[in-house]
């Protein structure tokens, strides 16, 4: 035990090498960035309930025997949403999709396929979601 204590005290006096300084500075910077970012998002981040905005894009591609529509859901609220169910309607055609998670500030997307001859303006809306 005595020998170990002696060894430890002599090591404390050693100067850091350039490599050690670089490691330390990079590490401190990485930690500070994460901590500052998390603190800032807690203090100044968007609060409030789930707020989902749905947009629909006709990709113009024919696939899987129909026309592909891309559904994008953006959560501009302050709470994440799970199991987000979205209904897409094109005339008489109705499709339903589920996104596992749309985190606060994030967006999620999925494609739905409707018959090529489906007519009418595509419309999408959120039916339900759960809170994590």
């Amino acid at each position, binding site marked *: 035990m005595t020998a*170990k204590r002696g060894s430890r005290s002599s*090591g404390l006096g*050693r100067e850091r090498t350039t490599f050690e300084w670089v490691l330390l500075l990079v590490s401190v910077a*990485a930690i500070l960035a*994460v901590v500052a970012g998390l*603190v800032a998002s*807690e203090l100044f981040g968007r609060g409030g309930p789930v707020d989902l905005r749905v947009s629909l894009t006709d990709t113009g591609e024919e696939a899987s025997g129909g026309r592909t529509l891309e559904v994008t859901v953006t959560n501009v609220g302050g709470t994440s949403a799970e199991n987000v169910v979205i209904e897409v309607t094109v005339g008489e055609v109705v499709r339903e999709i589920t996104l596992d998670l749309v*985190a606060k*500030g994030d967006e999620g997307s999925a494609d739905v396929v409707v018959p090529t001859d489906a007519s009418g303006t595509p419309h999408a809306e959120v039916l339900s979601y759960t809170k994590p």
Partner: protein
Amino acid sequence: MAEKATTAEDVMRGVAGGVLLGVPLLYTQETWLHGRSVSPVVILAGLAATFAVNVALSYYVGFRPGRTHRPTEDAVVGMGLSVLLAALLLLLLDRVGQGTSLENVLGVAALTAIPVSIGFSIGVALAPRSGAEKSEEIPSGGGDLLVAAGGALVFALNIAPTEEPILLAAELDGVRLGLLVVASLVLPYLMVFFAEFGGRDRRVASDGATQGPLTETLLAYAVAFVVCAAMLAMFGRMDELNGAAAARVVTLAFPASIGAALGRMLI
């Protein structure tokens, strides 16, 4: 005697420990989900508690041989590099990207960095300094590859039956799959032949048929690849031999190659 300065080999030992403990969590959907939905305060508390654990681990174990004289500094280095390593791995696996808000990137990276940093802090204890008992009795060449297969099997068996390799393979593009192959070769190479684990000199100097560092790394990856293909087939996830199946094997072969490296480090 004064304490030795930290070297790149020491850091690689910590990285090896971080990857070993972090990769299983990285292949877990719940990590991706909770990193986005858990409150930043909770994640910060987790980081603070982990830092305290890392200081203690750095004092008693650490990523450098011999006890450190600066456990707090080593814990800072371990946590900082773990955050960067976690972010890199998340980018590689496309778990964070352009559609991810900065807050969520930080949340997932910080959550993933927790086990990575623990692994970093116990890097030196991952493999015995002089190799495992009776390891010298294992024949070189074929024996090494057998051990690699065992390591790959143990490590990837936890992941193969789950949804994650299927999900990841479906979402990763060709570039990322290529980078995953590169990472599956480079990381094990550095772990086995660069980091100063026990028996490294013997492994580097060995000149058997499969024993050059590059040859052994490639062969060990091939072994991990075959083990993964067999496991996926066993779980009914390789119905056809096509691009999708290859992507699944490549995705699973990353943790398997880490396991294969661990196996070789232990002998």
